């Protein structure tokens, strides 16, 4: 399941996609994120699931463009080198911008 968190507005598309089928619930992304954007939650999309999944915190999902800005290319990172993307060995996290 691809869960998209974020929004679209006049300035562009800002979504973090979490592939919940691949997510192991290890929590490495949440520990790595310097802005505390990610957290582990119960898998509400699949009632049979036993492990938690990574998700974007509600308070960040509506201002993600700003929350994630310090890690973005302007600050010297590349998309593949984003701390959350790099921390996830399962390749679960993707950014749309």
């Amino acid at each position, binding site marked *: *399941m*691809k869960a*998209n968190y974020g*929004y*679209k*507005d006049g300035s562009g598309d800002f979504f973090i996609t979490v592939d919940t089928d691949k997510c192991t619930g290890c929590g490495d992304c949440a520990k790595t994120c310097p802005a505390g954007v990610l957290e582990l939650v119960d898998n*509400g*999309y*699949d*009632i049979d699931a036993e492990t938690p999944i990574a998700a974007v915190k509600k308070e960040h999902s509506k201002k993600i463009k700003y929350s994630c800005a310090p890690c973005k290319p302007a600050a010297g990172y590349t998309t593949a080198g984003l701390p959350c993307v790099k921390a996830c060995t399962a390749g679960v996290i993707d950014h749309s911008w």
Partner: protein
Amino acid sequence: MAEEQKKTEYWRWTESRWTNPDIDWKQGGIVSAGVDVGSVSTQAVIMVDGQLYCSSSMRTGSDSPESANSAMKWALEGTGLTTDKIQATVGTGYGRVNVPFATKAITEIACHARGGNFIYGPQVRTILDMGGQDCKAIRCDEKGKVTAFLMNDKCAAGTGRGMEVFADLLGVHINDVGKMSLQVDTEPPPVSSTCVVFAKSEASGLLRQGWPKEKVLAAYCSAMAHRVVTLLERIGVEKEFAITGGIAKNIGIVNRLSKELNVTPLKSDLDPQIAGAIGGALFAKVLFEKKGK
């Protein structure tokens, strides 16, 4: 005075309840319930052995637990069924954690996919839930399991609440808004403001310019449809396509959406607004069966 006031409540959509006359709960079977406490409306659905038995749909008040209770009470009215006979209940929607009698709370995304699957059949792949306060695009498989979802976390434009505001501004009853918006010869340019409040000011301006109500409504409906289409582009629209939630009853939006997307939404005799609660009741049944094992 009260009567007079009621006539001016153009935003007040019709509340409803329904019982399936072909089912008798006394025959036994698992009685499960789903309660969808949304930001604007609350629905309760009771199912007997996975078959739809009765439902209710009403406005959510300022008190979510109270709304859940009264929707449930209304659904049960006249059936002889009481809450203690319900074996499992799932709460869903914006106020899901506030359903006092729920066995479990499940996100509305999973419930709408499951409910959409029940209402429109296993062929449905894309479900657009246009609710009171947000709009969600859901992709699902033949079992009604979510494969992708997207919602706009930032903005309530393009939702039922926006429609209520426009019905109120124009003095047109919300049940007639969709039909009226189609009574234009040529489609006017869409309302350009995204924000509901600014869109309302823009519409006031158009009225002052002498635009008829039909034209203003057409401009707002097409703006709303267009906004949803751009949201859908991100996850893609796969046939078959269906719309759930209150806006599914607004023919002005539905027609414009299907024209822009070039797909015809599936139709059903069931109320598209109860999809979330149906999904909840189906999940409640599964939970009850699991517990019994």
